[in-house]
């Protein structure tokens, strides 16, 4: 585990939320936040509150939908689910990240070779 936590890169939170919903099914805000924390191995500096701004943003863009339901502990909770448009957007974003990560990896590998 790193000494300091990682700052979230611009735009990554939305993708994390979409991915979480795509793999885990419908979740409430807390569930999403917890899931991301767990997967990140507690490495990401995440104010859980920022999840909600991301959720509103995604909702406004039609990437996710929300519905009131009952949570495990039998309370009224708002559940989010990914929409068709969300799936499409996610595919685009994932491809983008993969390409970016690949490029970054190659660039960094090249530096290591020429270094010594």
């Amino acid at each position, binding site marked *: 585990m790193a000494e300091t936590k990682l700052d979230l890169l611009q735009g990554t939170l939305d993708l994390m939320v979409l991915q979480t919903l795509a793999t885990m099914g419908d979740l409430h805000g807390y569930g999403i936040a917890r899931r991301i924390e767990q997967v990140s191995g507690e490495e990401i500096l995440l*104010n*859980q*509150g920022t999840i909600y701004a991301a959720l*509103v943003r995604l909702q406004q*863009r039609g990437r996710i939908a929300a519905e009131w339901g009952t949570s495990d502990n039998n309370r009224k909770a708002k559940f989010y689910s990914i929409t068709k448009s969300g799936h499409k957007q996610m595919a685009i974003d994932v491809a983008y990240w993969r390409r970016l990560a690949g490029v970054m990896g190659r660039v960094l590998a090249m530096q290591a070779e020429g270094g010594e």
Partner: protein
Amino acid sequence: MKSLRAWLMRVAGMFSREQRRAGFDLELQNHIELQVEENLRAGMGAFEARRAALMKLGGLEKTRQAYSERGTVPFLETLMQDLRFAGRQLRKNPGFSVLAVLMLMVGVAASTAIFAFVDAALLKPLPYPKPDRLVEVTESVSFMPRANLSYLDYLDWKRMNREFQSMEAFRPTAYLLKTASGTEPVPGEMVSDGFFRTLGVAPLLGRDFYAGEDLPSGPMSVMLSFPAWQKYYGGRKSVVGEAVSLNGIPYTIVGVMPKTFEFAPRNNAEFWTALHATDSCSLRRSCHNLTGIARLNDGVSVATARANIITIAEELEREYPVTNRGQGVSVMSLSEAIVGDIRPILLTLLAGAGLLLLIACVNVSSLLLVRSESRKREIAVRGALGASPWRLKRQFITEGLILALIGSGLGMAVAYGLARVLVQLVSRDMIIHMPYLEGMGLNLRVFGFIMTVFLIAAVLFSLTPMSRLSSVEMREGLTEGARGSSGRGWRRLGANLVILELAVAVVLLVCAGLLGKSFYHLLHVDLNFEPQHLATAMVVLPDAVYAKDAQIVAVRREIVRRVGNLPGVTSASATTVIPTSCNCNTDWIRFVGRPYDGKHIEVNQRDVSAGYFTTLQTKLVRGRFFIEDEDAGKPLVAIINKAFAKKYFGNEDPVGKRMGDTELTPKSIKEIVGVVDDLREASLDAEIVPAVYYPIDQNTDSQFALVVRSKQDVNTLLPVLAPTIHAIDPGVGVVEEETMTQYISDSQSAYLHRSSAWMVTGFAGLALLLSTLGLYGVIAYSVSQREREIGVRMALGAQRSAVYRLILGEAGRLAGWGIAAGVVCSVGAAMLLRSLLFGVQAWDAGTLATVALLLGTSAMFAAYVPARRAASISPQEALRSE
């Protein structure tokens, strides 16, 4: 698309704010509960578990904020809050709000209405293509800077000039139109063939005059104005090619002008005929009866064109020394020729309205200052509670905007109505020469003017209270708030505003006074005739019927005789030019037996009937009046006015002296038989120039004016004039029947002086009211802020009279400074006004003193009310309220 949808959802979010917030609170609460449970499971204590949950969330309030910012449009939302708050503030203080809005409305309405006038008259170009290329071209003589052009000179100028694309001439006339119901005199215009092409206007129907159609040999053709087409032909398309009888001569209708066509010098002309220069005047180079217009070549300035025409005029002068000696040239832009006379008046009115607007704005600003003073605490509290300075400033901007918006919006509406009324006030005769005023309205430029005023007002109204609320002031507001002391700074600023306001009011009042005095002088100028109980009318004889001089003389004598026999009429007479019209219709003369240096002696010339001077009641100074049958068979005689006698005869007795035309042709020699008083021939503000009168029967013309004196109400005479004349010959045209007093008060000079005097007086009255209100506001506020101090003074034994002295003294000082500054400024302003003043100096002591007294009195009156309130303060209560 997505972003638009997102934005719409955010805007929608603003309207379901409460519901959304409740939902989100539930969601958050849920979130925290879940986290707390998790923490408890991890073994934390209850308190620690909740604290950790909140920390993990990143703060409850912050999350809520982030959520709602994302969910709505924060800028719009705070704007709505500000608007709601500003609305509440304005409603809470209706007196202030109504007063501020009304004051701004008055200023905006006055200035906009006048601006609409100025726009229509001075800014709106002539309704022709490339209007800046159009010029008026005329000759010029000693007392007529823009005299008429003679036909032969016109032809030479047109042929020899190098700077005009084209040059044309026109001449107003009246035609006797034969209609089914009889003969009717109608206004017309004779124009050279390229007239409409030079203006750049094409006919709506039919064709324009073709080149050469105005030659003496050309066909008699006529074009109709749109109104005439509607009026006489019901808008029939088949009218082109039909014949119409004008002055008993058949003309062919070749075209109809479009509805939008206007020609300011004579907009009421109904029949436009090609100029056939066959009359005797057109054959003489010394007879001037045309006005020229020309279109400049591209890139040529008016000055260059003028220089070119001057050269040509000099050449003609060498060639024709007898007729053209001393004939000057006038070339000016057509718009200048059309609106030049009213420009100073309009600019004066605009300046007056602008000053009124300034007073209104200053007044609202000082009201805002007063209010911001009393809101200091509220602002300080909001600041202390964490409102950012920008947010506080935005509040003032919002309030300023609202005030400015309502004020200028109402002002615009009132201005619209006001402009309508103003146009109605312009007499029909004047409108003929100012057709551009009819289309006056709220166009883009006027709207731009209002927007400018609105923006300036909005900036002023937001900055004024803001300037009072620097951060230092805000802190003071908290600490000394309860003391309610009025800041010295405020009093200085408020006082300066009042001084400015009073000074501006003085300027307006002085200008109004001077213009009013000018108008009074104008109406009381010595006419040297008695205008009461006089009626005038123009009579037009059909040329075809009255072709010989003897016929004209006979019918005119019959007309004068029959009109003179009407009940109540004491005398009737005829002249060629109605008194008080113009220094025009001039003659060149030369004296028998005196050396001649070739310079023209130019004098006003009128042909009058025998009873003319007795009818007008103009005094005979020497010699005799004309006698009844002094016609072409008798020796030629002349009567001169006093100005003539003084200028050309000095102490000599002019009676018996002889004069003739510039060549002293034997048949032009006349003997002076009398001298009359300086009968006012020209406008009321023009100087008296030498005039000569000839017997009308020795110098016949088919148009003349009747002047009739009645013992009874002269208005009852007007309707019987035409029937009386038609009883002699129904083919004779009678137009423009009116009373002499009406004629004088409708004259352009009287009209312009009267309207400017009235309107500036109106502005000045409003300025007086507004500035008095402003002074009242400042003094009243100052009293309310000093209640405690005054209470203490009175508790310590100050008399009521001392309190009066204190308050009135303060008002007096302000009024004194304001009036003093205003008097200095108004002398300067009046100097700029000089061209409009008549018979009164810019530094008219009486006006200055009257204004100072008036404003001083109303200032004291405005201060008296708050002073009385101050004096009635009960010391106990003032102290207890502490």
